[in-house]
């Protein structure tokens, strides 16, 4: 990773300023992402929402903040990939719901564990109606993770359709998992497993 960065830095230095690629320090997409992340952090750090009794309230607030910025329908569509077009509108609707719930359950813990980490925005790459916002998380232990948000314009707002953590695209990760299940079994099996996963999440602790 460091090596790539060094290469990238050297490459940047060699380029005349006018020819530098569209990696700006911040623009509208970055501002919108930053606003959403900041809002989420306020909720996460709010001592009033910390007690276990407030969990539901805290999660409701987080959900509201994130749903405004993340386009889960688009994520689900992309995650299903080529199989999306083979499904009926009803199936697609059901899939979006299952996928969103899966994400919500799978990431709530991770998101809630981030409270004292420092987030820096390292740049953005603008390409017409698409933009990639690059950020880094610095943990209190000194570890560094890159998190890039892939966004596109939808109804005048920049909406996130993929999150790339340490060069691994979440959509692609799900796309290959879903494809594997569909190819080895069937779409129905995938839906069954998603529902099973959901039941696993919502069932009370044994």
């Amino acid at each position: 990773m460091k090596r790539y960065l060094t290469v990238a830095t050297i490459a940047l230095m060699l380029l005349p300023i006018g020819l530098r690629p569209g990696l700006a320090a911040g623009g509208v997409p970055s501002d919108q992402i930053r606003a959403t992340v900041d809002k989420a952090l306020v909720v996460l750090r709010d001592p009033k929402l910390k007690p276990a009794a407030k969990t539901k309230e805290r999660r409701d607030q987080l959900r509201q903040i994130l749903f405004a910025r993340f386009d889960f329908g688009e994520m689900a569509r992309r995650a299903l990939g080529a199989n999306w077009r083979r499904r009926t509108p009803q199936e697609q609707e059901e899939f979006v719901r299952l996928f969103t719930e899966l994400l919500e359950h799978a990431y709530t813990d991770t998101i809630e564990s981030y409270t004292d980490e420092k987030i820096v925005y390292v740049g953005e790459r603008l390409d017409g109606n698409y933009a990639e916002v690059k950020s880094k998380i610095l943990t209190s232990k000194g570890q560094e993770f890159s998190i890039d948000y892939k966004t596109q314009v939808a109804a005048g707002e920049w909406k996130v359709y993929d999150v790339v953590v340490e060069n691994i695209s979440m959509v692609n990760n799900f796309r290959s998992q879903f494809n594997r299940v569909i190819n080895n079994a069937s779409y129905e099996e995938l839906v069954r497993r998603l529902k099973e996963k959901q039941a696993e999440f919502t069932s009370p602790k044994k």
Partner: protein
Amino acid sequence: MLAGIICLGYLAIRLGKLELFGNGGYVVYADFASVAGLKLGDPAEIAGVKVGKVESLSLAGDRARIAIRLEPQVVLQDDVIASVRARGLIGDKFILITPGASDKTIAPGGKIRETESPPDITDLIGKVVGGDLTSKTDKTEKKSE
């Protein structure tokens, strides 16, 4: 003897033509943060089937830009994802293209927007950050209190 030479010449031309045929199809571009280890001529595959090859590698700003020559019958949706993958741990690199859901397609000369650079510790991190559907997660059971 003469017939032999003619045959050889014919063969050479045929082979040459075949090579020329290989230059049919169309080119799309893709930018990667890194394509470490990828070489000219490495295959591009969809579902394990070769559909094209790497035609050029260059630097575009701070990123690597590759041109992929695709066979003419191949259609790419505009949300396909191109990743640089290796066969096995130290195997040859190739470009894996996973088909997308979009109704729009990438025109000749167009760009694959979604790309993934070679993973360093993909599987590990993939499971940590991406969630693994295929195995039970004990971590998640704790939280539904």
